């Protein structure tokens, strides 16, 4: 059996909403699931394609190594699998009664959330890389504090 490589695979949805991968048109893997190896620390790199048994079929160093068509298909699947949010701007943040109330603008739009006990739920992944986990376990990521506008940064600085 040919080993899958970025060049010899074809990804498509068949039947609808099920991702399928054929290798060199020899054999196909049904129900492929893309999973980032390290979505927080190495976003956009190392994408694993897993089969329905949860075994890795291949590990792509970069999505860009796929052809455009495959990229589109994969992106569609990724959009469905990763419902996390990246914070673009902080509209307001305040500490009250031990909880922090946030209003942020993410790539998905505006959202309010509450974080309880910040020491557990504001996780530093790097010196300037921060993730908030709200009370429902939704994640709001700030990949780089320095890239936020000054006002948003001030909100974070005043609290963390």
């Amino acid at each position: 059996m040919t080993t899958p490589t970025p060049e010899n695979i074809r990804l498509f949805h068949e039947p609808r909403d099920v991702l399928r991968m054929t290798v060199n048109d020899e054999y196909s893997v049904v129900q492929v699931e893309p999973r980032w190896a390290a979505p927080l620390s190495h976003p956009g790199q190392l994408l694993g394609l897993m089969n329905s048994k949860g075994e890795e079929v291949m590990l792509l160093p970069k999505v860009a190594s796929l052809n455009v068509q495959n990229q589109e298909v994969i992106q569609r699947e990724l959009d469905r699998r990763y419902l996390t949010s990246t914070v673009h701007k902080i509209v307001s943040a305040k500490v009250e009664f031990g909880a922090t109330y946030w209003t942020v603008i993410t790539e998905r739009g505006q959202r309010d959330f509450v974080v309880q006990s910040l020491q557990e739920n504001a996780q530093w992944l790097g010196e300037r890389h921060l993730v908030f986990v709200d009370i429902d376990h939704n994640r709001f990521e700030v990949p780089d504090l320095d890239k936020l506008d000054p006002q948003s940064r001030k909100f974070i600085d005043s609290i963390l």
Partner: protein
Amino acid sequence: MPSKDFDKLRDFLPLSLRRNAFAQGVLCLLPVMKSEPLQPKESEPNSTGALIRLVADLLENGDYGQRVLEVDSDNVRILEMNGALSATVPIAEIHNARNEPVVGGGRLEITTKNGEKLALISYTHTIAARFSEAARGIEQLAKGEELLVNLKPQKTHCEKCKRLLPEVDGVCPACVDRGKTLLRIARFMLPYKYWAIALASLAFLTTVLNLVPPILQGRLIDEVLQKHTNLPLLFQLILIWVAIALTSSLINITRDRIVAKLAGSIAADLRATVYRAIEFLQLTYFDKKQVGAIASRVTTDTDRVWGFLVEGVPYFLLNGLMLIGVAAFLFWTNWFLALCILAPIPVIITIAVRFWKPMTQMFYKVGQKWARFYIHLNESLNGIRVVKAFAKEDSEFDKFTRRNMELREAGVKADSRWFTIFGGMIFFSSLGTIICWLVGGAMVVRKELTLGEFYRIHAYLALIYGPIQWFAAVNNWFSRAMAGADRIFEIIDMEKEAYLHDNGLKLDIKGEVTFEDVRFGYDKSNPVLRDINFVAKPGEMIGLVGKSGAGKSTTINLIARFYEPDSGSIKIDGVDYREIELQHLRRQIGIVLQEPFLFNGTVAENIAYGKSDATMEEIVEAARAANAHNFIMMKPDGYDQMVGERGAKLSGGERQRVSIARAILHDPRILILDEATSSVDVETEKQIQEAIGRLVAGRTTFAIAHRLSTLRNADRLIVLDRGKIVEVGTHEELMEKKGVFHKLVETQSEIQEIIGFDLGQAEAAK
């Protein structure tokens, strides 16, 4: 609810809230058990008869926004908020429906009868559990069963202030009734009410006594010093002064002793109440919180509360009285001067009010930095062996330094700010004194005021500014105490394990365990066990096998009722085990956990943990049965050997054997062994196995083992795969069947051959 009302309600909410209130599924409908045939029209998607209606918080393109899942007896539909219909799946075509957990939320997936898989609608974690429940409802409908789902509306926003609630259906910290909380904590003073009254009276007395010396001094100045005569009056006044000083010292000593007594007692009561409440909390709570955070409720939160109760509440009244009293006295002495010297007070109050909030925020931030610093310190010290082994001292020090610097910066910033504000307040307080000298001095010169009166007013000034500063601080103190109290009551009020239902059955069990359609997930939206059905007869030994993460430990967690099934039921001797008194049930269940936990104490104490009146003979017998006796005897102190924190001074296998002995001595009707022998060598395991073999006779036993040969004695094996039972049978039956179990065994013996240990040979050698 007809959707018109839905829309009306939606319009009714403030704009900022609409998105979230709806996004988070606040509005949904309960089954309206009526099924009339529908003619769904795109223009009018809100026909009646919806059995389930849930609002998701993500649009098709992934943006935040609302879409509606509507299920009636014929169709599953997805509607956009503008009423457009984006998908319809007839119930009759549905094979199954489930919540597919994804990163950050979930999506509803429906598999149709012709094998097609449809990803219908996505949502964040906030409402994933509800969609999981809806998926179950859809399945029930598809199977033609009765619709039995629990989708009662959730409260995500405070009804009063519209603030997001920290916990779904929880209390709004901004709107909790402070008065009520105060009353509730005041109740902790009830047992000591006489002491509290004594404390307040004594404090009142001290205050009154404090007022006297200035009067004496004033008279001294006017009637003795200025007149250069009347020495007897001097002696007389001094005598009174001495008497007052003596009395007030005595009163102070008594008062402080009462404070000590009250503080100690109330603190102890509070800690005991909180600890007792925590003990009975459900395990799901402990899964979510870090142990440190729970412990701090017993220590920090209770400290804040008793501190306020004992040192705050009594003075609240007193300082208030004092403030009013002294001010009145000043005005009575000379209203104009009083007005002048009290002028800076509004400024001080403004500063206090204006700066408290940012100040508390800064101190909060310092607290965060401390926590971060402490976590790092704690971790690197706990892992010091690993640090050394990898020669990582330098990089750990770098990390430490960074935390340390952060802490320094935050601390310096907050303290500098605080001292600036405080300095400002001091300045305005001293302004009072300066005004007093300026205006009062002028009045004395103009003979409008005697020197004695001036002195008295000057002395009372301090009695005014003291309480003012106290009141400036008390607001903060009060809110922190109330926050602490809220956290304490949150625990006290939280749902407990069903321990305390004394109406539970006290069943002496025989040991039949029945699982009926059990479904369970640590996170309700993601079931770890599904459709579990089996009956374990009394005395039977059941082996649970399956790959890592298949749900074996979870199954036994359910048997011990550490968790309860989300749906379906577990019966013991035919009785739903929720009807059996919990402690009574657990006393008849013995468990050896996958990660054995020993308490810091002696070996003997640990073995006798479940039976504190066990004799030494019984302990030795249990240890023998667990094949622990010999190693224990080789320890210098034998059974009195200390095992260290968490049993750290024993080896992994030794710990396991002690915990087996502990379960054996407990003499349970149902014995649970989760990987009980995973850390011992094969020879020892065999011996323990034999011992257990003798012991399990007559007890229902559930054993989990990765070394499959361990389960050879089992009457039946239950093979789990990804949360479902895939095979049941004896060892031989399953080997013959050549199914999942066979494959597990095959791979295992292959691996064992590779590492040079062949089970078959070992068996043959025997």
